[in-house]
């Protein structure tokens, strides 16, 4: 089977099972909704404060949601011993990784897309004209999170205490994603010209590229054993 077909089938399989059960997307959405509600209880903010805190709040919410969503990515493969079939399937393991990565990316982006209007409503944001650059930043950062998250999901799914270990491994390594995502979101929301936060976007791209290649390469060892 050609390489891209394998990726396509894995993505299709993941999205189809998600479409049918709607298990992940609804639980992720309600979890993030809860986080946003807690934020709006916890901080009573005026306009300036909202702008100052918003990038951090957005990425704390997305970060927690990604732990929930990405951690489950390979959990679904444990039922009926699907993981063993993936392992013995006569296809390159890298293609499985890329398929899983793209599937996770679609799921996370969908959840984030639903969450942005909630942020706008609950914090009275006036960002309709900045939506496009914001979406771009979100996509760039989510690729990095998913690249690491997919690898660690495959790694932690077969160990004890996986729910605890997954964020413990993901968060320290994803620190550059959070730093540059928060900084570039700050730039977008406060209406700075693109050149002010261009280097953060570049850093995100570098992170995405390097970590995707490294995880792609390492995934083979995880699924081999």
């Amino acid at each position, binding site marked *: 089977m050609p390489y891209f077909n394998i990726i396509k089938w894995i993505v299709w399989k993941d999205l189809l099972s998600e479409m049918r059960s709607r298990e992940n997307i609804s639980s992720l959405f309600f979890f993030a909704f809860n986080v946003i509600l807690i934020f709006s209880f916890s901080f009573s903010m005026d306009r300036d404060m909202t702008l100052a805190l918003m990038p951090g709040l957005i990425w704390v919410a997305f970060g927690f949601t990604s732990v929930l969503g990405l951690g489950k990515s390979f959990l679904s493969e444990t039922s009926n011993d699907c993981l063993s079939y993936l392992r013995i399937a006569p296809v390159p393991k890298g293609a499985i990784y890329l398929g899983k990565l793209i599937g996770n990316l679609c799921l996370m982006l969908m959840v984030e897309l639903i969450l942005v209007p909630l942020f706008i409503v609950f914090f009275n944001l006036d960002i309709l004209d900045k939506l496009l650059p914001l979406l771009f930043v979100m996509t760039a950062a989510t690729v990095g999170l998913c690249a690491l998250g997919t690898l660690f999901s495959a790694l932690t799914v*077969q160990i004890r205490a996986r729910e605890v*270990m997954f964020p413990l491994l993901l968060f*320290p*390594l994803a*620190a550059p994603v959070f730093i540059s995502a928060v900084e570039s979101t700050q730039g977008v929301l406060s209406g700075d010209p693109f050149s002010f936060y261009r*280097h953060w976007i570049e*850093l995100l791209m570098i992170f995405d590229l390097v970590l995707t290649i490294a995880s792609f390469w390492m995934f083979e060892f995880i699924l*081999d054993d």
Partner: protein
Amino acid sequence: MSPIESLVTVMHKLIKILRRFEEKIGFCAALFIFAGLYMGLIASPPDYYQGEVVRIMYVHVPFAKCALLAYTTLFLGSLFYLWKKDPVVDNLCHAAAGVGVFFTLVALVTGSIWAKPTWNTWWTWDPRLVSFAILLLILIGYVMLRALIDDPRKEATYAAVLAIIGFIDLPIVYFSVEWWRTLHQPMSISVRGISISPEIRTPLILMSIGMSLLFIYMLAIRTQMLYLRHLLEAKQGGLLSEPERRLRDDLS
């Protein structure tokens, strides 16, 4: 014999050599550290700007260097393990991570104690500080991960993957914080460029050599300990993978 096979034999020989010389290495480490401490704490004068506070540098700098040495050992060992799957190298990696946690933690704590009188803060968003904090988290994650996997072969492979990803990630962490800091807090650090005079350089070099020897000594002891445990487990059948073990239990 292929070059790879001979390399593996070299690793096993290394264990034997370490066994023979570990006491001497430990003795030399103690000698250098005592000489360095004497020169650093008693013989050398206080620094012109920092006063007596500078003396913590004689401990802090060697510890930080050894922490990086530990992680480099871990990274190279992990690459080699994924390539050759040699259990001795895996024991070496495991030992390097454990020793690395100790060195990183001490480097962070001593750095923090030094920073309070010098920068007037325990913690600042300096790239080195943050990279070391992340390094500590990765190493602790590594040790925890190993404790949570039952199958020894899986444990070794997963841990090696984590170590390699972490090593690739660290420079990005460093640069992300450096950009952040230089853009947002241009004033903070003013102690860059301490010119090192011989009175300060000599104890620093002695301590660095001593600490590196101490690191090798600790690494040797721990590697041997883990290797012996590995042998013991192999004798008890622990080397079998989980399904194999289940099969054995079913058969008996």
